[in-house]
């Protein structure tokens, strides 16, 4: 191993702490994502050269922004001379005039919000919003994102290139939306964060139940947004993610097998995270009209506060699903409500509700609907129906731990038959 060089270590630490902030500001100053990324690299390269010689500047971030801006304008001017592209020259001039605004704390924090809102602009495709946010806001590499999403790096790189091209060609502005647009645009940002979280938490395919990194990345994004934009629904989403994630250690066994809520060892839940989540739920519910994330977080909080499934206030959960259904009239919400009714009033009360949803055909391809039906039939001792529904769920799942869980249930059913 190479002996640790203290200045190199400082540069690395500054990179981790500041590179996303510096990038966000450089995009504003240079008016272009690619130019800003290049300038960011140039600035850190210069830091590696100059800091060992001249000492570490008092405000490393300001130094990096001003160095990056200088290098970026230089590059734009050189390019402008080569291609005689008027536009690049124009941009460089704008950048020079804008030079005074870069240093102060408030505009730097605004830049981080501008970056988030631009990456999550609804004019970009949802998968492009996710990829761009992970790349630009979280600083994940294309390879890391591709790995997390089980996609080829080339496919992912292509998606990001196309998104940046649209930002440039359609001129998606680098700004925080106006008050009139904000509610809708904030929803889009929350949706991207929740998509990232869910992909990490309930990996829809692949070998593991959770993909730790994406869930943690989403929580970090949630924290950042809560700091920059302290709105009730932002607190609520952060709470929802913290409360779900608090069960991570209890959700899978030593061999990665899925453990359902009912069978989880609740002493393994992260109680620090639960306390933080519940505190945030309270703040979110204090809003005049709690939004859909606040209601979902409240449901997660009811679970988190119970010592066991038997101890859970299922009446409260049914009422919260009713409230959620008014916001999000989706069959999945209805299904969750039906399961809560079964917990409150017994499986015989839940089964007709689940059957009614399945009979409408809405959730015929949804593995969890069949798994829920199978579970209720199992509890009612209707083994044949349970088996048929588990088999249907098994055919629909692409996730290995779920497959093993269902296979175990099927084996238990077969065992029970034999004993008879």
């Amino acid at each position, binding site marked *: 191993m190479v002996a640790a060089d203290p200045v190199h270590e400082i540069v690395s630490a500054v990179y981790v702490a500041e590179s996303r902030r510096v990038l966000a500001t450089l995009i504003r100053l240079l008016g272009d994502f690619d130019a800003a990324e290049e300038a960011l690299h140039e600035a850190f390269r210069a830091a590696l050269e100059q800091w060992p010689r001249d000492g570490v500047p008092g405000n490393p971030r300001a130094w990096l922004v001003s160095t990056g801006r200088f290098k970026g304008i230089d590059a734009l001017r050189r390019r402008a001379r080569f291609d005689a592209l008027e536009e690049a020259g124009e941009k460089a001039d704008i950048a020079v005039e804008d030079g005074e605004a870069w240093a102060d704390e408030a505009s730097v924090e605004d830049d981080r919000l501008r970056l988030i809102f631009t990456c999550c*602009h609804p*004019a970009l495709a949802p998968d492009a919003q996710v990829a761009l946010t992970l790349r630009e806001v979280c600083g994940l590499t294309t390879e890391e994102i591709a790995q997390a999403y089980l996609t080829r790096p080339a496919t992912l790189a292509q998606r990001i290139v196309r998104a940046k091209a649209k930002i440039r*060609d*359609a*001129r*998606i*502005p680098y*700004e925080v*939306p106006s008050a009139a*647009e904000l509610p809708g645009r904030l929803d889009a940002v929350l949706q991207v964060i929740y998509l990232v979280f869910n992909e990490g938490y309930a990996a829809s395919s692949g070998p593991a139940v959770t993909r730790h990194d994406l869930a943690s990345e989403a929580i970090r994004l949630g924290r950042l947004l809560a700091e920059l934009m302290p709105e009730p629904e932002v607190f609520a989403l952060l709470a929802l993610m913290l409360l779900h994630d608090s069960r991570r250690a209890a959700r899978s066994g030593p061999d990665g097998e899925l453990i359902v809520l009912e069978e989880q060892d609740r002493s393994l839940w992260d109680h620090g995270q639960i306390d933080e989540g519940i505190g945030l739920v309270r703040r979110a519910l204090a809003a005049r009209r709690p939004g859909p994330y606040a209601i979902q977080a409240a449901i997660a909080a009811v679970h988190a506060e119970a010592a066991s499934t038997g101890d859970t206030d299922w009446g409260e959960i049914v009422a919260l699903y009713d409230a959620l259904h008014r916001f999000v009239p989706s069959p999945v919400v209805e299904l969750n409500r039906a399961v809560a009714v079964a917990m409150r009033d017994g499986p015989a009360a839940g089964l007709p509700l689940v059957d009614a949803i399945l009979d409408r055909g809405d959730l015929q391809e949804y593995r969890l609907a069949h798994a829920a039906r199978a579970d209720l039939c199992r509890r009612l001792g209707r083994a044949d129906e349970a088996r048929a529904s588990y088999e249907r769920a098994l055919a629909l799942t692409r996730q290995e731990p779920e497959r093993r869980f269902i296979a175990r249930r099927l084996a238990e059913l077969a065992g029970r038959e034999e004993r008879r």
Partner: protein
Amino acid sequence: MKYVCLVYLETGKLHAVPDRECMACGDGLRASGRLVAAEALQPIEAATSVRVRNGKTWITDGPFAETKEQLAGFYLIDAADLNEAIQVASKIPPAREGTIEVRPVRQLNPD
């Protein structure tokens, strides 16, 4: 920057929005200085397709594509950025019946 807002409507909805509403929309945009040009189009039955292949001109009736929606008109507007263009598009009356496709114009490059 210029954007063209292409108005797509299902055939049965071509007259769902009264003409006077569309005229008012155009007048408002013109007054605000954002309108470059706007026209409503005759239905696709009045269209003729022209192709030149190997120096020969081919003329056909149509195009009668499989899609349910057809181009019913366009607005060429001047907007600061996509957000402003989206704002304008959302106020074009047929947006509530069909789809407005917002496209940035491309500068031709003489080289």
